Every structure is written in C-alpha cells, then in structure tokens.
C-alpha cells in the first residue's frame, strides 16, 4: 500500500472514529463580493478585465465531538467563467483534529487542511489579494496530509510538522503521485510585537497531470503514437523566513521566499520518413531547472476606533529558468509590485460575531522587462462573515 493511501485511510478512520459522541456544531458563512478592474498603464477606461464576482463563498461546518476531537469541513462556492453555470464548488477543508495527550495545546490533524508554509496559512486577507507564494504557485493554501501542530508554552510561538500530498487542495485522484511533501514551520515571539519565523518544505516530485495524456495522440497504420508522455516538477524545495512587527496601531508583515525545482518532461518524438510517413516514435526525456526568489511586505496602520486600516504592499519576484549552463532571469515573468489601499470595517469581525467590511486596493505590477508596460489593478470588495451554533434538540 502506498504511503499516501495509508495517510488518507488513517485520516478517514480518524474522521469515522470520531463520530462517537454528540457535541456542538457551528455553521459559518464567509463571502467576498468583488469588483476587479485591470488595465495596462492606468488606462482604467480601457480595462483588460472588468468584472464583478463572488470571489469566495465559504460554507463551513465545524463539530466538536468531545474536548479532544474536532472536525471541520469547508466548501467554497464561487464565480467561475470555466463553467456554463458561472460558478463552481471546491472542497477547501475537511479534517479531523485530535488533541495530543501529554502535549498540551498540540493537535494531530488529518485530512485536507492548512498548508503551514510561510505566510500562506495565516494570511487573513487584510490585503485582499493573494499571498505571494499562493499567487505565484509555489504551493497551495491547503493540502491533504497529516500534521502535528500547536502552540509553544507561555505564548512563545507555534510549531507545525507535516506530511502532505504536495499537490495542493485542487488535485486529487489520478493527479496525485506517491511522493509525499515534508514540511516544518516555526514562529517565535520572544518579545511581544516581534515575531520571527521560518518554514521549509521539500517534495521529491509533484503531480503528473499530463501522464498518459492523449492530447498528442497520432494514429496511423493501426499504431497509436503519443506525443506527450510525462511531466513533473521534481526536487522541489521551498523556504520562507518571515517576520511580523506590531507596535500600537502599526504592523509590518514580511516574507522572503525561495523556491526551486526541476521540471522533468518527456515526450514521444514522431519519426517520419522522407515522404512524411510515420515510421515510429522515440521517447525523449529532458530536464530544466527553475529558481525563484521573492519578497513581500505589507504595512498596515489601524486608525483610532479600529474601523479603518490603511495598508500598503511591496513585492519583488525574480524567476530564473535554466538556459544551457546558466540561470538567466526571465524578465517577462519577474516583477516589482507596489500599491496601497484601505479597509473600512462596518462591523469588526470578532470571535463568534459577524463581520462586515469594505476593502479597496490599487496595485501596480511592473515586469522587469522594461519594454513591457505595467499592469494596474483596482479592486473593491465587500467581505462578510457570520457564524452560528446549530441548536441541539432539547431532550
């Protein structure tokens, strides 16, 4: 039995095994209604993108079976132009938590859960756009796996160790390979207001989405020739030192990202004779190295009364791709980004209470290829969140 199958079966046993005692159930709804205007070099009247969408529509059910047992499932119903209905559903969380005996404040979590890497798992969308690692496809914000996660004594920080599928929450079934991802994450706050942390994950190979892909199939003379054979990113390694400074109304969140992998791909080259007839096909295997580095900074000032937050963003992303023996910068896909915005909280989100806020940001992304014009994005969003305990029948 593959390791991944074992992990998933254990997760399933955990979920089924927890259905033993009745407890409390919480229902939560979280939605983001967004308008996006994207244009080149500030031409707002001639946008390349101008759309209204339900960007997120989380519906979440949590159940506390008993003090040490907890389960949660979240589905995301959101606007999508990939489907004729204009919307789709995605499974975002489905896990069971088991408190670790004799290790206070630590849980073992099994199932589809947070991916404890860098800033991605604690990104609370104070800035409404995605966190850098999420945005650039370094990793997904959630994945299937088993983690040991918890808080250090005296509020010193948090620690997570995990084994994941490595492909992210969007991939299941045939797209998931047998190579697990190993992850470690630590955050320490020795002085209140100064948090330092670092994460690392390694994965020998991620998904193989093109395996047995028949798109490139050629049939001739009773033979089938596949032009595409296999593609995978191997030797994946990512690390992310982070910091958070918070003093009074000011906070600054920062992350440095390093990510490297080798893309291994193979294909069948169709061999033809001088007349153009297919003779046979030859398997060709190639590899190409990729290396990326990034920096993301998000300063936030909370105005008195806590209704208004003024925020900024500064990001750098460098993408290098192997060319012969060198790793030149891909200037088209590398960029500097900056921007600013604000959040207005009609009702502040608070534990167990609804929240309603309006978010507005502008960001400008300038590719490092100076021949390319910058892209400006204006984003306005109403975000709401509420939850309620599901009443239990009186007995």
């Amino acid at each position, binding site marked *: 039995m593959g390791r991944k199958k074992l992990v998933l079966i254990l997760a399933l046993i955990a979920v089924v095994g927890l259905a033993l005692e009745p*407890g409390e159930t919480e229902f939560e709804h979280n939605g983001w209604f967004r308008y996006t205007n994207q244009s080149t070099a500030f031409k707002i009247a001639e946008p390349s993108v101008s759309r209204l969408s339900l960007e997120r529509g989380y519906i979440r059910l949590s159940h*506390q079976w008993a*003090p040490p047992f907890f389960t949660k499932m979240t589905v995301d119903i959101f606007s999508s132009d990939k489907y004729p209905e204009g919307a789709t559903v995605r499974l975002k969380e489905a896990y069971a938590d088991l408190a670790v005996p004799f290790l206070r404040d630590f849980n073992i979590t099994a199932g589809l859960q947070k991916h404890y890497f860098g800033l991605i798992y604690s990104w609370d969308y104070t800035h409404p756009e995605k966190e850098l690692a999420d945005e650039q496809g370094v990793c997904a914000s959630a994945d299937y796996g088993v983690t040991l996660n918890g*808080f250090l004594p*005296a509020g010193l920080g948090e620690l997570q160790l995990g084994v994941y599928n490595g492909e992210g929450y969007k991939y299941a079934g045939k797209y998931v390979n047998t190579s697990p991802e190993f992850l470690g994450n630590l955050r320490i706050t020795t002085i209140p207001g100064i948090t330092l942390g670092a994460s690392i994950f390694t994965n020998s190979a991620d998904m193989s989405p093109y395996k047995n892909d028949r798109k490139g199939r050629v049939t001739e003379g009773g033979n089938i020739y596949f032009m595409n054979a296999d593609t995978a990113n191997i030797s994946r390694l990512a690390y992310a030192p982070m910091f958070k400074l918070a003093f009074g109304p000011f*906070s600054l969140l920062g992350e440095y990202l390093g990510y490297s992998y080798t893309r291994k791909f193979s294909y069948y080259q169709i061999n033809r004779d001088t007349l153009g007839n297919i003779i046979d096909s030859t398997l060709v295997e190639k590899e190409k190295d990729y290396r990326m580095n990034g920096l993301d900074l998000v300063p936030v000032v909370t105005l008195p009364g806590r209704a208004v937050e003024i925020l900024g963003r500064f990001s750098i992303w460098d993408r290098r791709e192997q060319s012969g023996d060198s790793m030149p910068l891909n200037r088209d896909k590398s960029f500097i980004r900056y921007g600013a915005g604000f959040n207005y909280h009609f009702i502040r989100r*608070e534990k*167990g209470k609804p929240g309603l806020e309006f978010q507005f940001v502008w960001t400008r992304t300038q590719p490092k290829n100076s021949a390319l014009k910058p892209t400006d994005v204006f984003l306005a969003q109403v975000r709401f969140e509420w939850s309620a305990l599901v009443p239990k029948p009186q007995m």
Partner: protein
Amino acid sequence: MKKLFTVATLISTMLFGAEIIVKGSDTMLNLTQRLAEAFSAVRPDVTVSITGGGSGVGINAIINREVDIANASRKIKSKEISSARSNGVNPVEIVIALDGLSVIVNSRNPVSQLTVEQIGAIYRGEITNWNQLGGPNKKIVLYGRQPNSGTFVFFREEVVKGEYSPAMRQMNGNAQIVEGVKADEGGIGYVGLGYIKGIEGIKPLAVARKAREDYISPADESKVRSGAYPLTRPLYQYTNGRPKGIVRDFILFELSPQGQKIVEEEGFVPVTQNYSERNNQILQ
C-alpha cells in the same frame, strides 16, 4: 439607545476625564460593576465602562487592543497568548478574587452533597434521574453556560472531563441559571459564588473530590480560600503590559481593603497571600 449611551459616555469622557474599558466574564460582571462604582466615588474623573460577553470575548478584546482590561474566569490559553504577542500585546495577569464555583439544586431537592465524579457523570448525561443519587424519582434537568463562557470551559475541564450532554440547557448567564434551577425541582446548575448569596429557592451542594473525602460547601469561605473546596478558581484580569496610569489605579483599588471588602460583599473570596504577592510584583 445603546449608541446614544456610547456617544454620551464618549462626550462625558472627553469633557470630564478618562475612561477605562473592561470586557469579559459574566461571572465577574456584577463584582466589577460594584468595584467600578466604588472607584468612581474616589476618582470621579475616571469613567469605568464594563460589559460582559464571556471570558473568551474579553480575552479576544484585549488581544485586539479594544479594551484596557479583560475579565476572565479562566486562565488565558497558550494560543491566545501567542496571538496576543504576535499582535504586539503582552497579556499580564492579575488575580482580583477567588470563586468557589457552586453547584446548585432546587431547595426542595433532598440531595445535598455529591462527588466531582458524580457531578461529571450528571453533566455527561450518564446519570439522568435523581433516584440514582438517593433522591426522588425525578428526571435531572441540566442548566449550564454557553461555550464563550470561562465558567463553561472551567467546569468542562475540571468536572465534566468529557463532552456536556446535548440535553444541557445553555443559559446566557449565571442569573439565568439561578432562575432556571429555582423554578425546576429537577434542575441542577453551576454558578459563581457571588450568584448564590442570599438567594432563596436554591441551595449549593457540598462537593467532595472523591467518595471517601470530605464534602465541602462553597459557602465555607475558609475552605474556598485554602483551596480545599474542589471547585475553587481564581478570577483574573488581563491588561496589555504592566498596568499603568488610571488602569493601575483601578486595579490597586480592587485589591485594596476597600475593594476586597466589596469582593466579599458580592459573595466571592478575597485574594490569598500567594496571589497578593504575585499581584504586587506586577503592580510595583
């Protein structure tokens, strides 16, 4: 009306003086209100605004810098401290009183003492009739708090040691539990010591840690003070960093002989020597 009151409070504060905002435990609500009233008599320049909502709500409010003091009838959790510290908030703990969490039944109920294990079994739904405990043939009706309550958490961890029975009626506050049990001969509830003093129609049970140990009533102050009463717990206040200025003045008043007298009058137990020493180190 609430908004009008808030605006009036703001205007009065701007015109006449400073304000201390306190939020959290419902068990501590009446006590803190009495302390605030007495403090205002000696410091009329300071307004103390107090709201309940539960210990969890109070702790969350101090993490988010919304209040000066969080009232909590349970200790702050590691996760909460971590969240506070990464937010630049340093929760500092003061114990202002002790509480003997009281298990109450209707005064007509002949049962007068139980062990912690028996009470736990009742709240887990394993014992469902008073005749299983030597009482009348009457169904036990459970009254308890809501999950945002520190008392709910304390009782679950120290007594229930499992999951509450789904049959438990989750009440908004201590006063509602008292009213419920008072009107229900089969009722059982748990409330802060301050909510049973002088109330007719209910009685607190004497509680033993184990069957062969002494049964102790929460009304015996010396046993609560010494920790011999099995459900003794400290009542906490949390501030962001060591209390300073008027917040420190208010806490010093709470811990003063005058403040501790109010603690007793409200049915709670004054802080013991060891907690006093800890408090003094913080307030120096």
